Every structure is written in C-alpha cells, then in structure tokens.
C-alpha cells in the first residue's frame, strides 16, 4: 500500500491477508484515476445527466422564520434514487469499470446504497449482487423490489443480527473468494483503506458545491454545518470542504435510538469505544470483551455499530462535534420539515433536522447561518412513519 490510510491513529487495513492484493490494486487505481481528466469528464457527465447534479442549496424561509436563524438545505434528496449515495456509486462503478472488473457487489441496510449500486450496475452493464440482512429484506420490501427491477440480485444474509453489519461481513467474504473479477462497492466512508478516503473523495462534491453556493448567496462561510452520521458518508462529503475553515462549526448527528444510555442506540461516537470492525480502527459499539453489539435506530441508515474512522479522528481532535437524536425526536424532525417546508426528509436526514431545531433554539445560536445536509428523501420511510404515527397505509 502506498498510504497507511490513517486519520491520526484511526483507519488502517485490518483485513485478512487474502484481501490485501485487492486493496493494493484498488488503491493504485484510485490514485491513478482520481485526478485523471478523462475519468472526471465521464464522472461529471453522469453526475450531471444521470444523477441530477448540481443539487440546490435551498433557503428554507419558513423554518428560518420559525427558528430565528438563516437555514439552508443542501438538497441531496433531489438526486436520482433519492439520496447522496449515487455520488459514490457512480464514482466507484466507473473506477471498477476502468479496472476491468466484471461484477459489482455491495452491502445495504435500508436499501438506499443497494439501489444506488443497482442502477449504476444497470447503467454500466455490470452484473450486481447486493447483500442485505434478512431482517432488512423484510423491513424494506419495496427497496428489494426496486433493486431487482434494475437487474440486481438481492442476497439475504441470515447470520448474526441479520442487518447491515452482517451484510458487510458477507460481502467481504464473497469478495475474498472473488477478488479477481469483482469490485466491492462499499457505501460509506468506512471499511479498510482506501475506502474511507475514496468514498470521501467521491462524496466531497457535496462540500465543493455547497461552498460555492453559500459564497454566491452569502459571501461568507456558514456558521455551522449539520449532517446525520451512520457510517458517515454524507457528513464527510459536506464537511470535507470546510474542515480547514476553523470558523465553521461541524456537527454530526447520530441515531440515538431509544436514547444513548438505553442500550438500544446507534450513537457509536457518543457512547461507543475504540475498536476494530470491518477493516478499520474507529469507534464501535461493543461489550467489555470486544464483541460487537447490535445497533438500534428507527432509521436503517444510521443503524450501524461502527462509524467511519475520519469521524473518530474529527471527534477526538475536537474539530467536529457529535450529538445524538432519539427515534422520537427524529420523527418530530420528519414532520417539522414536511409541514414547514413541504420537503419530506429521509428518516436519517430527519435526525439532522431534529438537531437543527434544538440548536437553533439555543439563545446563543440565534441569527446564525446554518446549513443542513438533507442527505435523502423520505419516500422510502412512508410505511414506517405512518405506522409510528398510528396510521395505516
């Protein structure tokens, strides 16, 4: 490997020896193509024409009036397939094609990354298999159907907690057996090097657009950026352009589940501890002996007992702050944005909205310019939210 893939002490390549050559090959290809003109022309074309970039930085007037702040929403929810995930799947899909790989595999929790991979597989004519915990297959039937419509094969995973972390294990195992012709398209800024760096690179388009847009609209950096954090790809994407601007406060919002101290939570950075999971050293939810715990969160995208290693680094260095929002608060955020702005957020993004309200209600934050990364739209969550609200669809 050319780089050790570390953010401070976090990150790295904690994988079986059998995967190292594949990671070396991937790192070399990423370094070769990330600044390659032709590659980027092609990627820009698909981001624009297929995915619908750039997304707007929308001034949320009603919410701004209500909360007494200047609130902007980065509208990643407007992208094809309904979330920011497509930025990364297009990037990695094209990279895999340039590497001569014939097949894509991916993991998915809620199904958003699975769908974003499936459509890219269809676009690039690459057979695609998506590993999904069998619990999630049941919870997200609609998304399974969407993936299958785009020719992807959905493989239910019956091991462990039958959710995202087990889907990742199974995808890694399959990759170990098929490294020659297969690219494993990881959906978040996690996993062994070079994934955290590579996924950040492909998601950093969010931050670059946002910076340009806020400069056009306000002429100065925002005071604060708020984004939800599961693995952390939308957050690192929008943070990336602002990390070096110290005056910009960066806040990541984790899925608190029933509450951070309830034992049923997805708030890895808030209550987890250092550990090695899925190829990198970061924060994880675990017991005293290092057995990984199951995460709990109403939104499947935040329901993960690990977190990207760069977020661990941003946390311990104090550059970013991480907070948790409970399931209940997230549902409130979901309704708030729908009612005030006519924008139905994904349950993941609703966590960021819920924290936005808390933040804006603090006296010292009145009048601030706040950007929330609206990472996805809520269509996928309709059944779940209706059920939680006591309605039946």
């Amino acid at each position, binding site marked *: 490997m050319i780089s050790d893939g570390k953010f401070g002490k976090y990150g790295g390549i904690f994988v079986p020896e059998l995967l190292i050559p594949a990671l070396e090959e991937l790192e070399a290809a990423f370094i070769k193509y990330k600044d390659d003109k032709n590659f980027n022309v092609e990627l820009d074309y698909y981001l624009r024409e297929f995915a619908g970039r750039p997304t707007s930085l929308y001034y949320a007037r009603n919410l701004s009036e209500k909360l007494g702040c200047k609130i902007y929403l980065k509208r990643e929810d407007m992208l094809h397939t309904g979330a920011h995930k497509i930025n990364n799947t297009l990037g990695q899909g094209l990279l895999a094609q340039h590497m001569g790989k014939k097949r894509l595999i991916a993991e998915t929790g809620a199904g958003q990354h699975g769908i974003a991979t499936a459509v890219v597989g269809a676009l690039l004519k690459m057979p695609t298999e998506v590993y999904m915990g069998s619990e999630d297959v049941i919870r997200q039937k609609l998304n399974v159907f969407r993936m299958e419509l785009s020719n992807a094969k959905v493989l239910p995973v019956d091991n462990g907690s039958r959710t995202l972390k087990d889907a990742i294990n199974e995808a890694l195992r399959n990759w170990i057996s098929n490294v020659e012709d297969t690219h494993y398209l990881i959906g978040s800024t996690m996993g062994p090097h070079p994934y955290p760096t590579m996924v950040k690179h492909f998601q950093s388009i969010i931050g670059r657009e946002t910076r340009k847009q806020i400069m056009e609209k306000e002429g100065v950096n925002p005071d604060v950026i708020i984004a939800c954090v599961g693995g952390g790809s939308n957050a690192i994407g929008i943070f990336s352009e602002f990390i070096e601007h110290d005056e910009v406060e960066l806040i990541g919002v984790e899925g608190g589940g029933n509450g951070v101290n309830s034992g049923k939570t997805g708030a890895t950075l808030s209550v987890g501890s250092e*550990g090695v999971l899925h190829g990198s050293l970061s924060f994880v939810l675990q017991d005293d002996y*290092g057995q990984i715990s199951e995460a709990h969160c109403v939104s499947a995208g935040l329901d993960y007992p690990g977190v990207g290693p760069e977020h661990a680094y941003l946390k311990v260095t104090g550059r970013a702050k991480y907070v948790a929002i409970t399931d209940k608060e997230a549902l409130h955020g979901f309704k708030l944005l729908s009612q005030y702005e006519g924008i139905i957020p994904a349950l993941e993004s609703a966590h960021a909205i819920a924290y936005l309200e808390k933040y804006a209600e603090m006296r010292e934050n009145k009048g601030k310019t706040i950007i929330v990364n609206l990472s996805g739209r809520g269509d996928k969550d309709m059944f779940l939210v209706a059920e939680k609200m006591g309605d039946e669809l």
Partner: protein
Amino acid sequence: MIENNPIAESYSDMFKRVKEKGEGVFIPFIVAGDPDFETSLRMVRMMVDGGADALEIGFPFSDPLADGPTVQSADIRALNSGMNTDKGFEFVRRIREFTDIPIGLLVYYNLIYKMGVDKFYRKAHISGVNGVLAADLPPEEASIAIEAARNNGVNQIFLAAQSTSNERLKKIVELCSGFLYVVSVMGVTGARSQLKVSTVELVERMRIHTQLPICVGFGISKPEHVREVIAAGADGAIVGSALIDVMVNNVENSEFRVRECCQIMKNATKVR
C-alpha cells in the same frame, strides 16, 4: 512477573520431533466453548488422543469475516454459551492440565485490542499459549502486537496466500514466528471437496522465502487433502471446519467420531 508458566513444548521442538518420525504435523482446530465450555474441552481431549501434534483454539468473535458458515455457527454457539476472552484463557489453562503440545490461538484483532494488547499476550503466555494468529491483522498493522508477543514469549503467526506477492511474503516471514499459516484456497474457512490451488507450487514458493515450518489450512477437510499438502512438502495440515461438521453431525457419539476423524487425519500425515 510471569508465574504459573506451564511447560509447553515449543513449536520448533514439535516440528522437529514429528519430522524425525517421518510424519507431517496434524493440527486440529476447535472454537473454545462450542457448544459449551466442558463439551469443547472434552473434544480437545479427543483430538489429543486422536493424535493431534498441536492445537489451534479459536476464540469466538461476533463478526468473523474470514470464516465460512461452519465456524460462524460455532462462534455463535460459543458466544451464546457465555464464552469470552478470559474464559478462553481459562480453557487453555485446562487443556494444559492434560497436554503439553503447542497451542495456537486464532482470534480477531478486536478481542486483543479491547483487552489491551500487552495484557492479552501476557494472559496468553500465562495460560500456556504458544502462538497467536489474528485473522484480520496483516503485517502493516501488527507492530504493537509483535512487540507484545515478543515481550511475553509468544509467537506471532501470520497468514500467507496464493495471492501474496513475493515482496509481501518476504515482509511476512520476517515478522512471523512459530510457523507460517498458508491459506490453500482463495476464500474463507470451510470444508471443500477439492483444493483448487496447486498446493505444490504454493508450498514451493513459500519455501524459497522461509525456513519457518509451513502449515496449510482453510478447506482441508479430507484425509486426501492432508496427504496432498504433506506430499506437496508442507510441514503440517490444519483441519477446522471438517471437525466442527463431525461434531455437529454426530451429536450422539461426537467424542468418538472426533477422535476417529483425528486418527484418520493424523494417519494421512504419515505419507513420507
């Protein structure tokens, strides 16, 4: 500081002893605590009775990404029975009551990291462990573990595979001690009907780079496989999932079957 240090035969003495008999080394694998502490301890006794030259003891992990379905299920059974790292060391200590053959641990790095790297190796040494292999710890990340292993008189064992370049192999064998664990297939652990890679070629290539004993594992499930890897010039064969399958499929007389299976596998090492 180091007390209760049980007398264990070293890897090098064991490999020498077995080689002098004209045999290959047979190393069975078991997950500590599968399906419970006492039962798995009895299985280890059967393995030793059946002719094991050394033992590989797996500590169960919630997310064993290098393992196939057989070991995954064993890990889950063991965790459900209450196995943890401290009980794992107690398990090794109990094995030391009836045998002094080398014992290697097969673990995932988070178990080591969470306990504290030096503390883990100190406890390993005290309980009677000869070597530690962390399945997800390549040389790039291993410097802290290697130092702790050396300080505590434990061998750090590494994996090498068909896909490992000669350049990497040089780095690996420099850091590795005890023996080199060669993975015979491109995949996860688990019984297979056929070994795909040319084992002869693989072992020969490894030989060029190291004086360390070479043991082949992953997918070795039949006596033919054992004969094949020993005939190919390997010093030993490691059998894991196949033995777990024997245990699971013969609940009534699993102890007898495990001993019998080990006898057959051990006999297959006598090919020279």
